[in-house]
């Protein structure tokens, strides 16, 4: 049996795909020519998939320095008449928001799709924002799939729609679509490759006030056409049941939970359902048809009442006397599930819930005290563990000179090192957004008297760390900025970035160094350390904190996971550490209490190092007061 691949032109065949692979496949089928992104869960695999077939299919794929740039890359391609896309997580769209708001006035020439991967439940994010509002604000129609198959199909159509209506489309996915898996029936791959060209047209592309005033009405007109058209798009489906009193309107992935709930409650013939695949704009004709056919309506959607608000507006405008429920019964926090939908539907019908969910909750509550708290942790041998430790030791030393009870502050950022917030490290005091650590540190410097040591990863530094670094120099913020340089974008799956020396498509390129950038920006104290040379690292960070003025320390050590992979490839051996039990003072447990390394475990009353997971980083050996930790 010949194995099919993501790039196989095999219409009608089935592949087992991750949602993000299906989204990439849809773009491939549509003949996308330019794709740019900055990695971010749950979006990263879209661009990884495209990068893996870019050369074969003649697609230009790049990891951009940030989402704003990624979007501008795609916009430029569209202006030149080429099909293009940018992909990012929901908060990434905030970074791209600036060009987005003007791009809508421009519209699309080559099909242009912005993929926004929202994260209801905030599984891997700092918030739960609902990007349908960003789309609404910028007159951007939204396609929102209810399944992995539909994600592929919609994405394959999205570019065509964008060209037809000359508008940028948002493709909104959520974690359970992006990281869902399903069998997917493939479509045909378009081999069309256009030669893009730039046509000078200031009245369309140069935004001074006159162009804004000229182009905004054109954008509104384009959107009005789309509003008509969505009523007949296949992604919106109305199923009216004779005599049904209850109507359900379900958007995106919620539709799958709705189908399950109706089946489980055996309400198939008793409830009318409108499936929404275009929440912005709503298919108003279909909404009206449903509203006039039932007594009560329940709007089921994750996060905010976006569809609900608009449905209520439609009902009000058309004077349809129907009771509309939504967030009064469906939670606005967290992702939905079949259970949450069942509980809401049961409130509006006389249906009996198939299982007693309260009983199941009770079981979970009863066992909770028995269960270990298992937060995500830094891997064994992770250099961030050493950096966090060194920063804390150094900062506390300096804090003593500030006076009794003064605590250093550690503004943190977005990346694996965020996990240093958990015990025992407890080395992160704020996490807000990409680059936020340096910005917050800048602000703190003018308010509090304490050592302020901010940290961010290398990829984050290139993404959003440089402007606040320049700000610290310009506005004389006395802070220490540590760049945790592990030579990859680890959290999202080890993507390359400007500091790695190669591109998404595997080409070699210039390798930028954080220390060179810091010096060029006028920082007068810039040092590079290896966090595994612990005492030297602590001394250097201490000197940086004591330095009068902004200082930068680059803590450089490759990601442990990446390094293990490299060693395996080269056939190099990993030499783990071990604990000399004759020397170990069991009661001290400094290694356990201070580091939280998963390779250090308790076995039969002894503290031992698991030789399979230990990477031999020797961090624990350097802090053991009894010199009991050794390496063969």
């Amino acid at each position: 049996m010949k194995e099919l691949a993501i790039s196989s032109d095999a219409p009608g065949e089935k592949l087992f795909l991750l949602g993000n692979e299906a989204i990439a496949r849809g773009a491939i089928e549509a003949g996308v020519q330019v794709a740019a992104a900055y990695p971010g869960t749950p979006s990263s695999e879209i661009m990884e998939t495209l990068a893996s077939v870019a050369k074969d299919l003649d697609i230009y794929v790049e990891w951009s320095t940030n989402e704003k740039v990624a979007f501008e890359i795609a916009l430029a391609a569209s202006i030149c008449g080429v099909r293009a896309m940018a992909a990012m997580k929901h908060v990434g769209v905030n970074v791209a928001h600036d060009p987005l708001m003007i791009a809508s006035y421009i519209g699309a020439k080559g099909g242009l799709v912005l993929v926004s991967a929202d994260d209801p439940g905030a599984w891997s994010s700092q918030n739960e924002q609902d990007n349908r509002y960003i789309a609404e604000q910028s007159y951007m129609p939204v396609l929102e799939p209810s399944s992995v198959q539909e994600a592929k199909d919609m994405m394959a159509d999205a570019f065509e729609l964008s060209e037809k209506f000359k508008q940028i489309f948002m493709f909104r996915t959520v974690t359970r679509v992006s990281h869902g898996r399903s069998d997917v029936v493939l479509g045909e791959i378009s081999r069309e490759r256009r030669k893009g060209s730039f046509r000078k047209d200031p009245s369309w592309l140069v935004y001074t006030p006159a162009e804004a005033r000229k182009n905004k009405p054109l954008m509104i007109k384009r959107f009005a056409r789309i509003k008509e058209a969505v009523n007949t798009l296949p992604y919106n489906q109305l199923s009216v049941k004779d005599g049904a009193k209850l109507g359900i309107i379900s958007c995106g992935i919620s539709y799958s939970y709705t189908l399950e709930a109706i089946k489980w409650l055996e309400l198939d013939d008793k409830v009318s359902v409108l499936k929404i695949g275009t929440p912005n704009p709503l298919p108003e004709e279909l909404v009206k048809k449903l509203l006039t056919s039932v007594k009560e309506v329940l709007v089921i959607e994750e996060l905010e009442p976006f569809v609900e608000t608009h449905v209520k507006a439609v009902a009000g405008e058309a004077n349809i006397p129907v009771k509309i429920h939504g967030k009064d019964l469906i939670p606005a926090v967290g992702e939905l599930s079949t259970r949450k939908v069942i509980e809401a539907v049961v409130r509006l019908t006389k249906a009996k819930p198939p299982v007693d969910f309260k009983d199941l909750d009770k079981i979970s509550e009863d066992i909770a005290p028995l269960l270990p708290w298992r937060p995500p942790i830094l891997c064994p041998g992770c250099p961030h563990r050493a950096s966090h430790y060194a920063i804390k030791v150094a900062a506390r030393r300096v804090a003593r000179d500030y006076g009794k009870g003064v605590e250093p502050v550690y503004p943190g950022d977005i990346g694996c090192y965020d996990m240093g917030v958990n015990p025992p490290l407890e080395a992160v005091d704020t996490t807000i957004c990409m680059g936020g650590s340096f910005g917050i540190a800048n602000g703190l410097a003018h308010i509090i008297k304490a050592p302020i040591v901010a940290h961010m990863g290398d990829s984050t530094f290139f993404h959003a760390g440089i402007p606040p670094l320049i700000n610290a120099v310009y506005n004389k913020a006395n802070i220490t900025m540590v760049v945790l340089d592990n030579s990859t974008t680890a959290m999202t799956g080890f993507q390359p970035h400007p500091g790695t020396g190669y591109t998404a498509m595997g080409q070699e390129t210039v390798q930028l160094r954080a220390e060179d950038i810091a010096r060029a920006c006028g920082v007068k104290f810039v040092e590079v350390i290896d966090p595994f040379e612990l005492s030297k690292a602590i001394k250097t960070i201490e000197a940086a904190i004591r330095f009068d003025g902004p200082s930068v320390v680059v803590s450089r050590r490759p990601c442990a996971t990446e390094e293990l992979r490299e060693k395996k490839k080269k056939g190099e051996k990993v030499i783990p550490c071990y604990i000399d039990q004759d020397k170990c003072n069991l009661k001290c447990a400094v290694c356990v209490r201070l580091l939280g390394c998963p390779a250090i475990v308790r076995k039969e009353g002894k503290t031992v190092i698991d030789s399979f997971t230990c990477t031999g980083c020797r961090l624990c050996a350097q802090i053991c007061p009894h010199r009991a930790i050794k390496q063969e």
Partner: protein
Amino acid sequence: MVKEFNVLIAGVGGQGVILMSELLGKAAVRDGLRVRGSEVLGMAIRGGSVVSMIRLGDEVYGPLIPLGKGDALVAMELAEGLRNIAYLSKSSVVILNTQRIVPATVLIGKSNYPSLEEVVEILNAISNRVVRLDAARIAEEAGSFMTANIVMLGALSAISQLPVKVKTIKESIQDHFSGKLAQVNLKAFDLGYQACQQA
């Protein structure tokens, strides 16, 4: 026609949970089954609790198994088996790897870890069939401790209700690994299969 069969695979980041669901899902598609599934990647995989769901059948729509609707729970780790019991019912089958991965929060006294007896007693009270395995030992026997996840996949395949053919799952293992690694993993699969049958 298969109506609905829900497999929940639980473990700790790094134990190979995602690969298990990939292999199972691929095999199911080859067998012509409709497959839905979901997992959480990213932050959650760094040593944290991991859950992957594979749902088979023509009447499955959503990516998530509803509470109480799990047909099989494959627990790669003792406490993670207990953590997911709200998905179980009397008719579910639990395949429990008795391996313990004790997090640092327990070592520093900030949380508890259940005993084997406690876990087994609670599971037995909820589900009719609980199969206990020492997957790490069986994996070593197969030739590599790295194959514990494949041992557990083999054990799952021995459950007669699983609608995927054993032969197809073995094919997807064969395709995924190359050369000697494929042999070791197939042996791990067979040993897991036998261990479950004998349990």
